[in-house]
């Protein structure tokens, strides 16, 4: 176990969702940064090595699936786990998330306990919050 905090990027165009996810994860000891759409997330991931991405689906400029695909592509190439959280629960949404490169797909709303538990599970071994 290292001394560096686990770095999470919360990606959502809704300010309230960012606030919710950020406050839950910060209280649990994660170091959280935010991006307001997929493209901003890609730009942030080019300059900072995150241990976890929490990504919404419906976002302007670049949607969540395209964002995850780009994070996995040679443009960024991050191996960090990606948790997608969406309002969409149509058949096929989860498959699309996994095909894009997400590690887990969850439908909103996600309870505080579940979000923190999943974030810990996905980042096990990558820092002091895990």
């Amino acid at each position, binding site marked *: 176990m290292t001394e560096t905090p686990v770095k999470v990027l919360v990606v959502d165009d809704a300010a309230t969702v960012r606030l*919710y996810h950020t406050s839950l994860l910060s209280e649990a000891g994660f170091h959280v940064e935010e991006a307001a759409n997929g493209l901003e997330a890609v730009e942030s991931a080019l300059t900072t090595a995150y241990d976890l991405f929490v990504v919404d689906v*419906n976002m302007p400029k670049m949607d969540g699936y395209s964002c995850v695909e780009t994070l996995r592509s040679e443009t960024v190439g991050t191996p960090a786990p990606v948790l997608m959280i969406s309002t969409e629960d149509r058949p096929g949404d989860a498959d699309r998330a996994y095909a894009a490169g997400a590690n887990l797909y969850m439908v909103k*709303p996600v309870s505080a306990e579940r979000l923190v538990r999943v974030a810990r599970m996905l980042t096990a071994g990558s820092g002091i919050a895990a």
Partner: protein
Amino acid sequence: MGLVRRNAPPPEETAAPPSIDTLMSQLDDPDPDCRREAALGLGGVDEAVPALLSRVAGEDEPAVRDAMLTTLAAHDTAAVAEGLAVHLATDDAGLRTAAAEALATMPVAVPAIVPRLLADPDHDVRVMTAMVLADLPHPGSQTWLAQMIAEDEHPNVVTAAIDALLPSLGPEHHDLLRAAVDRFPGDPFLRFTVEAALR
């Protein structure tokens, strides 16, 4: 070698825009860049609207689709608003969010279709509608968002509407927000959102 001045005449003197017919036929060119430039070049050309609308969903190059939407959104008309609103229901996340962005820049034509969108049986379409109303520069947006918060049956639509209303939230909305929490007592995110908004 070194710095050289362009010897040809300045580009503004050589530019002869292609004809509308040429641009229309280029919308089906196999070269994406040719299609992209045609879509942009058709900016302001009314008769190109149906051709562009019919190609938005089938265009698989994002840069070409973006060019089509940039041109279409500048036609703030009922035909374009209705033609784009159809895509709010699509499974293609890139297309539905791009359509929502375009609709959010069309304050003349979008208001007429809002009542129909608010009544759409698909709650995902209503979530996308909140996304449109968040950025639509129209004085009616606040009223429609308040209506969604008060009446919509799906908690994700209500939270999306609360988020969209946030920048224009005033004391007159406080009862509305409290009532939303009472309607969905089991939704932790909705409760958090309202508490944050009322703080």
